[in-house]
């Protein structure tokens, strides 16, 4: 298989896989148990916490492990129901794990303003500033978008939030491993992560919670995770997350160079094959290795089926539960018309891809475009 869908999910890094099977097999003790096996498990979790903290530039006691990125977002957002200030500022390009949660919080008195984006998919910090009311208690804007990869001006938004003492959360699920992510430098209060987006396992995530901020748990039970997330820890998953985070952070510059090289090669080859192809997103402030490209006149579902036959995995819009493709809401928000929207593919490269893979991909795109053109 030729896998170019790393923004959807990534394969396990071999070292992560090795560690996880070792932990699952040998260190199955309950981390809350006092015997040696429990202690070892506890040690593994705290090692992972340290790795994660180092990777994102925070202290170990600012990391809470969760059951994924969606849960991390939920943990922050549901705390709004305990707040006095229940107005939230977010953006129209957030993941459903933010927007749908906010919709559901409506019945608990939470209201929100979703600021728009420009044609590059960028939020304007002035819009955030203008949306602030005396009731605003939280700003949640993602660090980089999953569909077109535009990196948001979080530092500017943090500055605005700080002035008014508003809590700032950012969904950094897509960013870690692709751009440097440093909690202290960004100055955010909360930040969500998901292990499977950076070569770790599925079903594990983490939330950075800045020191001094105490969140009430969503999942209530024992005293794990400083009482912010109850339940016996997923030891192997957390260990896997920790190592994956360490690898991601240590290799960040190498990864960026590699991903940029692949993306540049892809773009120049596609421009040659299909001169009217449109690259969506921001020309510079862009996650490396993520390309959102429209092929005007070609339905993306047809393109995907043809490419799938060549063993190529790419993505388009957002797949729904019945496996069909809808026009991307994100691209619509950027002002992209439906016919262009419906001709869009997302290609997201990973560290395992090579220039040869890119050539195979562009060759298959070329033959697919030719086939569809001749059938029409």
């Amino acid at each position, binding site marked *: 298989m030729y896998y170019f869908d790393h923004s959807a999910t990534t394969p396990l890094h071999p070292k992560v896989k090795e560690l996880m099977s070792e932990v699952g097999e040998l260190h199955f003790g309950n981390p809350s148990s006092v015997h040696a096996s429990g202690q070892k498990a506890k040690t593994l979790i705290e090692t992972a916490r340290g790795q994660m903290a180092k990777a994102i530039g925070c202290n170990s006691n600012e990391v809470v492990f969760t059951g994924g990125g969606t849960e991390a977002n939920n943990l922050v957002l549901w705390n709004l129901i305990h707040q006095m200030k229940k107005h939230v500022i977010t953006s129209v390009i957030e993941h459903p794990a933010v927007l749908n949660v906010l919709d559901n919080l409506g019945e608990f008195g939470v209201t929100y303003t979703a600021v728009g984006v420009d044609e590059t998919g960028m939020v304007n910090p002035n819009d955030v500033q203008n949306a602030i009311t005396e009731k605003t208690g939280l700003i949640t804007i993602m660090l980089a978008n999953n569909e077109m990869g535009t990196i948001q001006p979080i530092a500017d938004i943090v500055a605005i939030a700080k002035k008014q003492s508003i809590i700032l959360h950012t969904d950094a699920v897509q960013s870690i491993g692709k751009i440097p992510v440093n909690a202290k430098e960004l100055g955010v209060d909360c930040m969500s992560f998901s292990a499977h987006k950076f070569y770790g396992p599925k079903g594990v995530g983490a939330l950075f919670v800045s020191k001094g901020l105490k969140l009430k748990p969503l999942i209530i039970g024992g005293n794990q995770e400083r009482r912010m997330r109850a339940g016996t820890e997923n030891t192997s998953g957390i260990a896997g997350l920790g190592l994956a985070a360490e690898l991601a952070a240590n290799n960040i510059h190498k990864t960026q160079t590699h991903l940029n090289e692949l993306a540049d090669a892809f773009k120049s080859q596609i421009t040659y094959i299909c001169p009217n192809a449109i690259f969506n997103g921001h020309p510079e402030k862009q996650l490396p290795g993520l390309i959102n490209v429209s092929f005007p006149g070609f339905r993306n*579902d*047809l393109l*995907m*089926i*043809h490419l*799938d*036959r060549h063993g190529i995995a790419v993505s388009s819009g957002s797949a729904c*539960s*019945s*496996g*069909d*493709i*809808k026009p991307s809401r994100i691209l619509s928000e950027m002002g992209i018309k439906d016919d262009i929207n419906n001709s869009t593919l997302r290609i997201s490269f990973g560290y395992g891809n090579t220039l040869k893979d890119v050539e195979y991909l562009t060759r298959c795109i070329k033959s697919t475009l030719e*086939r*569809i053109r001749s*059938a*029409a």
Partner: protein
Amino acid sequence: MSEHIIVGMSGGVDSAVSALLLKEQGFDVECIFMKNWEEDSEYCTSEQDYKDALLVCDELGLPLKTVNFCNEYKEKVFDYFLKEYAAGRTPNPDTLCNKEIKFKSFLNYALELGASRIATGHYARLDQQNSSVLLRKGNDGNKDQSYFLFMLNQYQLEKTIFPIGEMTKNDVRTLAKEKGLPNHDRKDSTGVCFIGERDFTEFLHQYFKPNPGEMITVDGKIVGRHNGLMFYTLGQRQGLGIGGGHGKKEAPWFVADKNIKDNILIIAQGHDHPDLFHSQLSVENVHWISDESPSTKILNAKIRYRQKDQSCSIEISNDALTVAFKNPQFAVTPGQAVVFYDGDICLGGGTIVNRN
């Protein structure tokens, strides 16, 4: 290289066995799940249908893809459906869905993907003659679906395979079980796809405001009020709100007619009331599968799905077609399809516009 066939996979056992048979016959088979209706509530089963289709394709080792024809369905089928209801008629969306979606949008899509033909799990048979293709009834007399296919043309039929047309539903289920298909005992879907399991009148209420009027008997006696003519179907018995009187064993009432102009619902008492029966009807949008009107004018016809063949004679003048039945027909319903047969050959049909 073997012939490339794309099977329309619904999640049901009929299309699953169709794919199975084609695969066993050595075709290069690919499956596509058609999504024609956006899930708007718990009633729409398309998510579960898709999961069933996935499990079947996994068992068969066949690729499955989804295509979305929601826009096409809305434009070509659903808008017509609403327009007809608004006009007081009772349309048949399934015949139109076959003509416009399954055997047009989907067929074109499959051809674009490089398939030479499509296959579906309909109970009907195709018989390639020298110069034309005949559409024949499915061998399962109880399941025959040729009624829903009468709007198809020669091109569409030439590009189609009905792999289970020779089989009975029972055979299909038995084979599915034998081959370990996970949906072998899934219950048959009923009703119109976009309405699913929900109450039909309740569904219509989402689209039409009540427009109450008088309910009168065929003798002109006012007996009550109705909610809006679109919520009633000719021949309908339930839901009139005027059942038998106190302790009296009264025969039930049926919808006999709709006076659209004056917004009056006309009802008749007793299933055998003569006003519920008509021997003649006129037809619009006539379509002949062979492209030519039949040489013989004495035929059989069905005015609803699964009705027994009814003997009739047809008369064609210009664009108009009239049908005279040998026996009077219960609840001849404008908007519904009348479909003509010569033996087991489905000749075509049209939309009922009037009866007398």
